């Protein structure tokens, strides 16, 4: 080993024993590469921006219910920007934040891979998200009329995408290279596995979208040009099948939660992993950005077949739950219902696929509302899954559990609000088809506004619940009881210490802690 790798304990010219000024808490927060701290910050801000985007959606829908409009010209850009915000400023970073925090713990690693890059990802995303919100306020965002603000909006979206992709690189690398001896890929916990499946798909999807943002800036960088560039070059990632990718980690969270709550091993483990991987494969949609690709049989197959792994997961988890006789807890119910929302998205995708395939006008559906329905179904499922994950792992993230009452309110509001929004869009896409006239627009937007308001309420409730749990821990009311999980993140109680090496038991199955509990070696039991 080269001596150059060893950092000198004492710098030349420094008096031994001289005290350095202690870093302030802000300096520690901003300068840290600790995955626990970065994960918590990312989760907190993601919930904040998720609530903000849902509020934007509510305002835009309210505006549409009035004849004169409340917001003037920015209502339409606000609607589009809010929809994009739900995905890129809300659910994606929420799931990445969970990945930052939990994936190293699940694979028994004291740190995330490339901790400084993970830190860069967090702060890059935060700056990008703040700039995007600013650009929306300045009549930019997506579809705004101010050239400068639209440029800021487009560039900030690029920064957000690059940052999220960088975060996923760190998470996926952690899964692949930080596993302890004995934990082959077939024994990786489900949430880590789902993040590993999601990583290449998100990275490639975001990479392609960033290229379109670049093209928009070098070819036609005024407000109208950038709006057209978004519609022609980036909107594909927010419709089937690409949009399904947002929900991949939800399947992993659900499987881990069911295993933990029932205290049972999910078997055959490989089948569940295979279902998550299959859903990932069917959600890879970079190749569908060309309109011609959207009229092929392969596209229809991708969009429709994505339902199979979700149904398989639902059936498998339902069977384990039936045998486990678990109490009705909010997070578990939310995760099961999130699967139904994903199936709703697949239904909307399938309708579009059948409608636009071949000649392109089988049902004469209204495509815009249909793609919005797909996005809303998936975003709601992902938000529900992320919030349920937060509730489930809150003893390890915040040191104390989230109150069940507040968790139920949050889950119910997000579920009902998101489902109303998405279903209204789905119904409108059918009702607004040629010759059918559509629904009464004022009523439609009124219901949408109510749904969006409920969604906002749910996200705010979850933010309050999370802050409450964090505060309880800060006030010394931390729950020190040992949770009976089967995977490595439950190997100690309370909030983990940054950089501490975990005591990793011998890994002989996907559930090493169940092995310890049962006193079985479970040789080859995966």
């Amino acid at each position, binding site marked *: *080993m*080269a001596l*150059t790798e*060893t950092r000198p*304990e004492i710098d030349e010219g420094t008096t031994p024993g001289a005290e350095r000024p202690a870093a302030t808490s802000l300096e520690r927060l901003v300068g840290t590469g600790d995955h626990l701290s970065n994960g918590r910050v990312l989760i907190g801000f993601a919930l904040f921006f998720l609530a903000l985007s849902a509020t934007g959606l509510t305002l835009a829908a309210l505006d549409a219910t009035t004849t004169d409009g409340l917001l003037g010209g920015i209502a339409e850009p606000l609607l589009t920007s809010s929809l994009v915000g739900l995905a890129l400023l809300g659910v994606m970073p929420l799931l990445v934040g969970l990945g930052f925090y939990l994936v190293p713990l699940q694979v028994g690693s004291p740190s995330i891979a490339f901790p400084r890059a993970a830190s860069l990802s967090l702060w890059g995303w935060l700056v990008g998200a703040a700039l995007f919100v600013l650009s929306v306020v300045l009549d930019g965002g997506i579809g705004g009329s101010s050239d400068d603000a639209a440029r800021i909006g487009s560039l900030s979206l690029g920064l957000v995408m690059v940052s999220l992709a960088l975060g996923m*690189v760190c998470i996926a690398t952690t899964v692949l290279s*930080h596993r302890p001896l004995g934990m082959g890929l077939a024994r990786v916990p489900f949430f880590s596995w789902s993040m590993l499946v999601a990583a290449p798909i998100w990275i490639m999807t975001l*990479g392609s979208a960033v290229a379109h943002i*670049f093209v928009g800036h070098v070819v036609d960088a005024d407000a109208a040009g950038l709006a057209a560039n978004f519609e022609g070059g980036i909107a594909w990632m927010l419709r089937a099948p690409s949009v399904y990718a947002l929900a991949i980690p939800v399947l992993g969270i659900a499987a881990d939660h069911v295993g933990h709550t029932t205290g049972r091993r999910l078997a055959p483990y490989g089948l569940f992993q295979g279902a998550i991987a299959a859903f990932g494969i069917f959600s890879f949609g970079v190749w569908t950005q060309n309109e011609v690709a959207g009229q092929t049989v392969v596209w229809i197959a991708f969009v429709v077949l994505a339902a199979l792994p979700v149904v398989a997961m639902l059936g498998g988890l339902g069977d384990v739950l039936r045998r486990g006789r678990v109490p009705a807890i909010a997070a578990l119910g939310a995760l099961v219902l999130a699967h139904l929302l994903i199936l709703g998205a697949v239904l909307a995708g399938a309708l579009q696929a059948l409608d636009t395939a071949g000649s392109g006008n089988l049902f004469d559906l209204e495509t815009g509302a249909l793609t919005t329905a797909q996005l809303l179904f998936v975003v709601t499922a992902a938000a529900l899954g992320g919030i349920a994950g937060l509730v489930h792992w809150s003893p390890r993230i915040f040191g104390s559990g989230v109150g069940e009452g507040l968790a139920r309110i949050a889950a119910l509001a997000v579920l009902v609000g998101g489902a109303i929004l998405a279903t209204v869009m789905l119904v409108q896409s059918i009702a607004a088809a040629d010759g059918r006239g559509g629904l009464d627009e004022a009523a439609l937007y009124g219901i949408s506004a109510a749904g969006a308001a409920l969604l906002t309420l749910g996200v705010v409730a979850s933010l309050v619940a999370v802050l409450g749990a964090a505060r309880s821990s800060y006030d010394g009311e931390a729950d020190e009881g040992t949770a009976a999980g089967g995977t490595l993140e439950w190997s100690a109680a309370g909030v983990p210490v940054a950089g501490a090496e975990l005591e990793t038991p011998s890994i002989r199955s996907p559930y090493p802690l169940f092995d310890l509990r049962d006193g079985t070696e479970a040789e080859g039991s995966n």
Partner: protein
Amino acid sequence: MADTTTLAVRPEPLLPRRRELLFGTAFGTAGVVMALVTLIGTYIATRDAAGAAWLAENDIPLTQPNMQLLTLGMSAVTMQWAVWAIARDDRYHTYMALGVTLLLGVAFVNQTTFLYSYAGITLAQPEGPLFYAVTAGHLAMVVAGIVFILLMSFRALGGQFSSRQPDGIAAAALFWYACIGLYALIWFAVYVQK
């Protein structure tokens, strides 16, 4: 004496996680490749829409792009030579192979700048922004690859890589091969098909 004691009690530095850099580079490269492929696809779609007028007023000889492809092709061999050598703890050949790869990379940059000045494509003409988005985007990737190889070369000189820990060289090689593969695509889509 005191120094000796200090060195004796100092804990050994941890070995980097095996293949961490390689996996990280693979994921990062996937994103970059997808971005470049998207740019190339956009270029092709725009060119097809423009028809015969596309780059009609510019002279782009094929000789220069052919030489560039050959240069990068040769660098693929030398890069693999470096990977092969470090896997066998052959430090002399590792340094030599990395040096030649860097030389070929710099030659590619030089050839590209020559082609730019020869073809005379300007940003003001309709084809200019997309042409440079694709080719200069790739050029930036090659420069990043050169910097990557240079950094790994310095680390190799510092003794950080060996047959037990060859990841840095392998990661740089992976990125470099992606540069070469993408250039082959650009060579065909931009220069051969014009």
